[in-house]
């Protein structure tokens, strides 16, 4: 038969003299030309499953039982040269991180031709054609480049080109767009869907992003702790989830219409079971609101809810989708807020270091303008969302506010007290009032300190408490971020990712700051954990009156949590205002492009040609703008247009035309 058929696949890892069955008893089939989504959070075993199917498990992993049939051939029995021949001919992988997946010291051309094989001249021609098919504008230049000289999107297009040489029969896409910007992600997903339809391999699309899976896959399987808990056509799965875990995932997912104060997200309680100590009955029972004696005793089989909708739950008939009534958009205008922090005309120019190659070619890298004159006001007890693609300057802005990166020019003041540009020059009182939470809690916590010790330091240093009073405050701080007080004695390695991030938030709150800057603070977290952290942040804000600057690339999170939002592009603010006014409907073409990236047929930005420098004088977004109106955009900086209620848009297109465009689309 044609396509992929996985039967009773069980995979184990050897970790510290222990064998852990990380994936158990998986059955699934994917026809040629079909895309099956594999959904799950970290620890679900989804990447392991993908690698095992390709026979590319790391050295400590092995297939313990089961079959992987590709066009009738059992891949688990193929060895040595036969396996290498299969790899080169039929099996393909598009990995998560394209930069890591390309050899840093070989040119793209060498890496592509090596995969294609045959005579070098033919291989180069074929490689160029593949790159062109992957929508790379200048294939010959890319062939001569090293991986680090390309943007993330280009690197992933190279990987895709490499994947689609010859006639692939099986394609595993392992989070192929997770490291990309939303706008690039949209284009790459479109390309993948296109190529799968054209070449017709059996495809597995592995992702934690439910929305993406819904776009590209016709059916999806949900993995939890190494087991397949539900599989169904994607539309069914997302509208009528039958497994409590799937239901919980969807209820954790921020989407338009949800607001923290009206219809909050419902995170899944508890944590993933330890793969060395799995529960006896249903593996989800310890976290499941429906669990009863039967669930704890016997493992449920995959039951058919409909013929093509299978669910591993005793009580699937009782599962109801989370369908809150949409939030009423309340636009409480910016003017309601009491200003807390203001930035005036902030600029930051960064001169990159030169590479040896630059030197050989006699090139001097152009200075990068990270911030190009940003004016910003943050109000008390409000959340200001800062959104934009990577390179838009949002992290630089955060670092300028905190003082980690002194601006090149401009000033920041805290309710009329000017702040010193650098954190070293700021007195403790100013440090106390501004705190920050970083993206990666793994690296933000000192592994040698217990949670209590990490919290005690800011209490003493910035809070001015003596040691005894500080220690009395620690349990309160932990409760504030919904952690039990006993956690004070734990060390970071004993915490999950979400718990670490909560400790990082607690540490930042220890000094009772007026403003907390959160730089992609929930981006690395699984959706169920992210929902819990977002709700904790919302509760703290209600209770303490703190203000947040919430930096993220995720517009759904901003629309859930933020009161105000600024949209940044290449170091400039292009739109700002109350979140409901800015996002629904989007008026600025860039905001519109960002928002519609998650829609299958949304409006797309044009791909910027890196060879052509952006206009010096005009609108920075003009080269990519789908609604650019011509010469004016290229030559003249766009004016600020006032849409009322603090909503400002920087665009040449008059407001009525922008509004009309949203009505007709």
């Amino acid at each position, binding site marked *: 038969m044609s396509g992929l058929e996985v039967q009773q696949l069980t995979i184990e890892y050897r970790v510290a003299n222990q064998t852990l069955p990380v994936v158990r008893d998986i059955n699934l089939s994917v026809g040629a030309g079909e895309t099956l989504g594999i959904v799950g959070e970290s620890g679900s075993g989804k990447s392991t499953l993908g690698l095992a199917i*390709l026979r*590319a498990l*790391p050295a400590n992993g092995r297939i313990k039982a089961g079959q992987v049939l590709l066009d009738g051939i059992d891949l688990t029995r193929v060895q040595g040269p036969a396996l*290498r*021949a*299969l*790899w*080169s*001919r039929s*099996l*393909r*992988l598009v*990995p998560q*991180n394209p930069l*890591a*997946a*390309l*050899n*840093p*010291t*070989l040119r793209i051309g060498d*890496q592509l031709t*090596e*995969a294609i094989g045959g005579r070098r001249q033919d291989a180069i021609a074929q490689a160029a054609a593949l790159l062109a098919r992957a929508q790379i504008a200048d294939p010959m230049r890319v062939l001569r480049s*090293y991986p*680090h*000289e390309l943007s993330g999107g280009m690197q992933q297009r190279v*990987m895709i080109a*490499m994947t689609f040489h010859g006639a692939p029969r099986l394609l595993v896409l392992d989070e192929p767009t997770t490291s990309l910007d939303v706008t690039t992600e949209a284009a790459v997903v479109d390309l993948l869907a296109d190529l799968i339809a054209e070449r017709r391999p059996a495809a597995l699309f592995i992702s934690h992003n439910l929305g993406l899976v819904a776009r590209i896959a016709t059916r999806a399987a949900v993995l939890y702790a190494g087991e397949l808990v539900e599989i169904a056509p994607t539309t069914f799965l997302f509208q009528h989830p039958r497994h409590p875990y799937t239901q919980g995932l969807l209820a954790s997912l921020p989407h338009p219409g949800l607001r923290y104060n009206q219809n909050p997200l419902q995170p899944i309680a508890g944590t993933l079971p330890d793969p060395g100590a799995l529960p006896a009955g249903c593996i989800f029972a310890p976290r499941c609101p429906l669990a009863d004696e039967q669930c704890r005793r016997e493992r449920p089989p995959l039951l058919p809810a409909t013929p093509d909708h299978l669910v591993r739950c005793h009580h699937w008939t009782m599962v109801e989708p989370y369908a809150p009534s949409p939030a009423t958009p309340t636009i409480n205008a910016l003017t309601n807020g009491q200003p807390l922090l203001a930035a005036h005309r902030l600029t930051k120019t960064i*001169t990159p*270091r*030169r*590479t*040896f*190659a630059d*030197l*050989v*070619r*006699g090139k001097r890298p152009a200075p990068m303008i990270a911030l190009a004159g940003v004016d910003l006001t943050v109000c008390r007890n409000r959340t200001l969302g800062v959104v934009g693609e990577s390179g838009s300057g949002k992290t630089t802005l955060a670092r300028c506010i905190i003082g980690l990166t002194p601006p090149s020019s401009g000033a920041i003041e805290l309710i009329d007290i000017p702040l010193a540009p650098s954190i070293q020059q700021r007195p403790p009182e100013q440090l106390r009032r501004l705190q920050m939470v970083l993206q990666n809690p793994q690296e933000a916590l000192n592994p040698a300190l217990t949670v209590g010790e990490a919290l005690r330091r800011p209490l003493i240093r910035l809070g001015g408490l003596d040691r005894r009073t500080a220690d009395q405050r620690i349990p309160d701080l932990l409760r504030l971020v919904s952690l039990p007080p006993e956690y004070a004695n734990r060390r970071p390695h004993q915490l999950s990712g979400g718990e670490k991030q909560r400790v990082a938030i607690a540490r930042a709150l220890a000094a009772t700051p007026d403003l907390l800057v959160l730089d992609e603070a929930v981006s690395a977290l699984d959706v169920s954990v992210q929902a819990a952290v977002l709700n904790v942040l919302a509760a703290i804000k209600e209770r303490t009156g703190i203000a947040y600057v919430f930096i993220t690339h995720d517009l759904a999170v901003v629309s859930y949590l933020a009161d105000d939002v600024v949209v940044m592009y290449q170091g400039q603010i292009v739109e700002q205002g109350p979140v409901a006014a800015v996002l629904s409907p989007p008026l600025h073409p860039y905001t519109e492009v960002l928002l519609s990236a998650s829609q299958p047929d949304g409006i797309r930005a044009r791909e910027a040609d890196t060879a052509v420098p952006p206009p010096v004088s005009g609108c920075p977004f003009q080269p990519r703008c789908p609604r650019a109106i011509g010469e004016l955009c290229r030559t003249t900086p766009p004016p600020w247009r006032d849409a009322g209620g603090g909503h400002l848009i920087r665009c040449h297109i008059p407001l009525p035309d922008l509004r009309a465009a949203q009505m007709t689309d």
Partner: protein
Amino acid sequence: MILRYLLRRVVLLGVTVLISSIIIFVICRLLPGDVARVLLGREASEAALTALRAELGLDRPLPIQYLDWLRGFVSGDWGVSYSTRQLIRPLVFERLHNSLLLAGATLLLAIPLGIGLGVWAGRRAGKLDDTAISISTLAVTGLPEFVTGLLLIDLFAFRMRMLPANSSLRPDANLLEIIPQLILPAMTATLVLLAYIARLTRAGVIHELNQDYVRTAMLKGLAPFTLLQRHVLRNALLPVITVIAISLGWLISGLIVVENVYNYPGIGRLLTFAIDRRDLILLQAVAMITVVIFAVANLLADLLYALLDPRIRLGDETR
């Protein structure tokens, strides 16, 4: 542009050498013992000593002596040895030539052996042969060179009678005569370097084998050997090459113990000879040439790394 970078590095190198020259000069003057007394012997009269000091210029102020010496060194006039009355420059250059020979012979042994063992151990990480390689290379590195040297002499020269125990080269020996004399000293120096090269290679191979791009290459269906040499080694050996380039300085001018064990006429033995005889002017010249060799080896290492790795950023080009 590249020339400007090179020029800058060479200027920096010059500054390094200049600072070192001051340190060398000052330390040589601080050494206990009076040159004149050493040269003329204990019985010499005070008048004779004063006359000799004046002849050697030792009675002038130190800065003048320093500048005089430096000018001479730069212009190629390195003076005459106090103890042997020979011209210093040809002497140092002859020894340098010998040292280069020994360094080359050592690298010929150490590089293939160290990398080979490292690759083997890295591919078999955690297995018995990996542990055996790691422990044995470490053990021989831990032994001082005079111990390994004497063991090798005992084994190869006295018991097996395969190789000469004494490597003092005849002045006009041809290469065929020299090679057997090079083997034992080169083996001794190799044993010191081996563990570094092997361990660094092993660590590199293990690190690279776990990288995503190796999996990408594997999934292209490449043969294991192609995978290893084209992808894994290409990246794993980058730091190894740098370490080898840096160790070149030590190999040329730091093999003091090895050269003494085998009586090998290299820079290292010239250095001990100069110290022995309180031959300050010779000592200064040898120390200076050592500094230059180390500085050049380091520059070579930096340039090699930058040439081999397209991602390398040149740290000092900012602002």
